[in-house]
C-alpha cells in the first residue's frame, strides 16, 4: 500500500488524512511544523528560498523519515516561484537520497489530464460512484466545518471574559471534527460547535477589526505566522483572514475547471491599482484589503514571506490603497525569526493607532496619543 504524506496546512491536515485513507492509501500524518522542521528545511533549501518553501521541505523530510513513500502537493501556474517548488523539492529530496514518488496536483482548468492521471495514482481501492459522492460530500463538509470553527474563534476571542477560553474551545472543536467518521457525525458536531461557542461568556464591546491578507501559506498556517491571529485576539481585536482553505480550494479548483475566474470580485477590486497578474497572491492581497475597507474594518495587516515577489509588489501598492480607503496598514515580513516580541510590539502599536483613529472619527476627545484609557 502507498504510504502517502503531504504538507501540513492547519487542521485541514486531518481531512486530507481521511481522504487519502478512504482512497485506499496508508497515511504518514505530517507533523505541525516546529523549530526543528524549520531547521531541517533551512539546512537543505537554497538560502534565498522563502519561508513556506523551507517549512514544507522540512515537513517532507520528517514525513520521509517516518516512512512515507509518496508525497502529494499542489502545483501552480506561476510566475510565483511556489509553482515550481514541488519540482525543486523533489530534486532536493532525491539528491539527499530519499526514494519516493512525488505526485503534483495541478489546477484542473489548465492541466486536467495531468490532474486525472495524478489522482488515479492515489486511488488504490475500488470505489463506486456513490462512494465518491459520499466521500466528496464528507470532505467538503469537514473542510467547511473546520473553517467555521476557526472563524467563530476569531470572532469570539476578543469578546471573551476569561482569557484563553476561546482557544480551549477551538481546540476541542478541532478534536471533535477529527473524530468524525461520516457526514451525519459532522452535522451533529456542527450543532455542538455552535453550542460550545455560545457557552463562552462574552463582553458587549465593538472590537477593533483587522483584516489579514498576504501569501496563502503564512496566512493559513499559524506555525508560520507566529500565531498572529491569537495574538490579535488576546489584544481584544477581531481578526479575519482573507483566505480559508475550503473557499480557496473551491475557487481555484472547481471554478477554474469551468473557466470561471476565481475570486472574481477581489481581482476586479484590485484592478485599478494592480492590472497585471504577478503570481502568488499579490493581487488578492490588494483586492482583499479593499474588501475589508468596504466592510468597515479598521486596518489591514499584510503577511509576506521574506523575498516573496508578489507580496513585495502588493506591499508597495497597499499604502496608497489603504490611504485612499482611510484604513490602517501594517506590513509584516516573516522569515526564520521565532521570537514573538518584535511582532507583538508592532502589532500592539498598530492596534493603539487604530483605536485612536476610531475615537477621533467618532468625535471623542483623544487625550494625547492615548487610546483606550
Amino acid at each position, binding site marked *: 500500500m502507498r504510504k502517502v504524506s503531504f504538507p501540513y496546512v492547519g487542521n485541514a491536515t486531518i481531512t486530507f488524512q481521511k481522504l487519502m485513507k478512504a482512497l485506499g492509501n496508508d497515511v504518514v500524518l505530517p507533523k505541525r511544523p516546529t523549530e526543528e*522542521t524549520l531547521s531541517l528545511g533551512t539546512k537543505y533549501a537554497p538560502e534565498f528560498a522563502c519561508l513556506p518553501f523551507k517549512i514544507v521541505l522540512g515537513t517532507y523530510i520528517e514525513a520521509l523519515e517516518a516512512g512515507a513513500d509518496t508525497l502529494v502537493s499542489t502545483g501552480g501556474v506561476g510566475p510565483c516561484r511556489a509553482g515550481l517548488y514541488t519540482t525543486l523539492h523533489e530534486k532536493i529530496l532525491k539528491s539527499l537520497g530519499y526514494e519516493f514518488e512525488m505526485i503534483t496536483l495541478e489546477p484542473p482548468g489548465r492541466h486536467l489530464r495531468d490532474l486525472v492521471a495524478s489522482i488515479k495514482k492515489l486511488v488504490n481501492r475500488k470505489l463506486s460512484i456513490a462512494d465518491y459522492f459520499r466521500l466528496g460530500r464528507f470532505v467538503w463538509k469537514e473542510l467547511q466545518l473546520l473553517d467555521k470553527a476557526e472563524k467563530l474563534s476569531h470572532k469570539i476571542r476578543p469578546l471573551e471574559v476569561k482569557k484563553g477560553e476561546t482557544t480551549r474551545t477551538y481546540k476541542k472543536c478541532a478534536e471533535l471534527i477529527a473524530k468524525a467518521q461520516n457526514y451525519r457525525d459532522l452535522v451533529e458536531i456542527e450543532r455542538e460547535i455552535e453550542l460550545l461557542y455560545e457557552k463562552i461568556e462574552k463582553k458587549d464591546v465593538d472590537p477593533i477589526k483587522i483584516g489579514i491578507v498576504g501569501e496563502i501559506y503564512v496566512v493559513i498556517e499559524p506555525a508560520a505566522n507566529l500565531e498572529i491571529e491569537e495574538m490579535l485576539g488576546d489584544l481584544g481585536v477581531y481578526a479575519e483572514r482573507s483566505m480559508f482553505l475550503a473557499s480557496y480550494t473551491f475557487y481555484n479548483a472547481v471554478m477554474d475547471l469551468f473557466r470561471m475566474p476565481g475570486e472574481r470580485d477581489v481581482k476586479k477590486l484590485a484592478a485599478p491599482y494592480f492590472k497585471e497578474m504577478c503570481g502568488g497572491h499579490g493581487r488578492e492581497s490588494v483586492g482583499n484589503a479593499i474588501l475589508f475597507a468596504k466592510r468597515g474594518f479598521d486596518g489591514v495587516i499584510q503577511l509576506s514571506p521574506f523575498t516573496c515577489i508578489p507580496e513585495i509588489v502588493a506591499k508597495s501598492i497597499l499604502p496608497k490603497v489603504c490611504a485612499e480607503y482611510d484604513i490602517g496598514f501594517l506590513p509584516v*515580513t516573516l522569515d526564520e525569526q521565532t521570537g514573538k516580541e*518584535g511582532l507583538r*510590539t508592532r502589532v500592539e*502599536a498598530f492596534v*493603539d493607532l487604530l483605536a485612536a483613529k476610531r475615537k*477621533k472619527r467618532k468625535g471623542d476627545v483623544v487625550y*494625547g*496619543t492615548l487610546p483606550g484609557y
Partner: protein
Amino acid sequence: MAHYLGIDVGSVSTNLIILDENGDVEDAVYIRTQGQPIKAVQEGLRLLNSRSNGKWDIRGVGTTGSGRQLAAVIAGADIVKNEITAHAIAAQKEVPDVRTVIEIGGQDSKIIILRDGVVTDFAMNTVCAAGTGSFLDQQANRLGIPIEEFGAYALRSKNPVRIAGRCAVFAESDMIHKQQLGYKIEDIIRGLCQALVRNYLNNVGKGKEILPRVVFQGGVAANIGMKAAFEEALGMEVYVPKYHHVMGALGAALLARDAGVKNTKFRGFQASDIEFTADSFECQGCSNHCEVVNIKMEGKVIARWGDRCNRWKTIEDFDVA
C-alpha cells in the same frame, strides 16, 4: 505630591525616570543593560532611591522597551506598553506640534507620523540594524574615538567621503577601505552619518510623509553629526528634546500617570534588594522544545514565558522546575 515612575528596558540601555503629577521630570537615570535587564532595573531603582532620600510618593509605574515584561515583574508595573506608543506620547508631551518622530535606539530605529496629535502611521526597522546605536558604538570603538565625541568629528569635516549605507557589513568594509586609502577620519565619520541617514530615510522612512516639526530622539540623537546629517537630507530643522535619551521611559511614566491607577503595584524602591533570579527549562510537550523561562522572586516563581503554546502561562497549575 504624587510621582510616577517610567522604566524603559532596551537592548543597550535601561532608563528610569521620575515624573511629578504635572509631568515634569524630577530625575532620570541611564544605565547600560549589558545583557542583564534584571540587574539594570534594580541598579536604576537603587540609584534613584539613593538620590531621593525617600521624598517620592510613587502612585503609578509604567514599563516599555523590549524588556518591558521583565521590568514589569521586577518593579511591579501598572501599565506595560510597547515603545512605539510610549515614544509618541513622550514626543507629544515635550513638543506639542510634533508631526514626525525619528527615534534611533541601540538595536532598532523607528519613524512615527503624527497628525493633529494622533499617531497615523509608524514603521520600525525589520531586517537591518545599520544606523542604530550599537553600530555607531562599535565604529567609534574601532576608531578609538569616545562615542560622545563622534558627532563633533563629523561636524569638522568639509569633504565627506561616500560610505555604503544599506547594510552594517557593507558600511564597515567601505569605511575600512577608505580609511586605508588615507581619507581623514572626520570625513569618513561624516560620510558614515550621511550613509546612515540615507539608509534610515530609504528603509524605515520609505513612503512616509515627513513634515515639520521633526523630533529626533533615542540614544543616537545625542550625536550632533547624525542630527546635522538629518537636517541636511531633509532640508528642515530637526529638534532634539532635552530628555531625548530617556523618552521611552518618559512616555511610560506619562501612561502610568494617565491610566487612573488607584493602587499601584509598585514593589517600592526596595525591589532593588529583593533577590530575583531567572532560570529556564526545555519543555518536552512537543518537538518545538521551547525554552521556558521562570522568573523567581526569592526562589518563588512569579512569572513564566517563552512557550509558544501558553501551556506554562498559568503558574499555579505547574509549580515545577
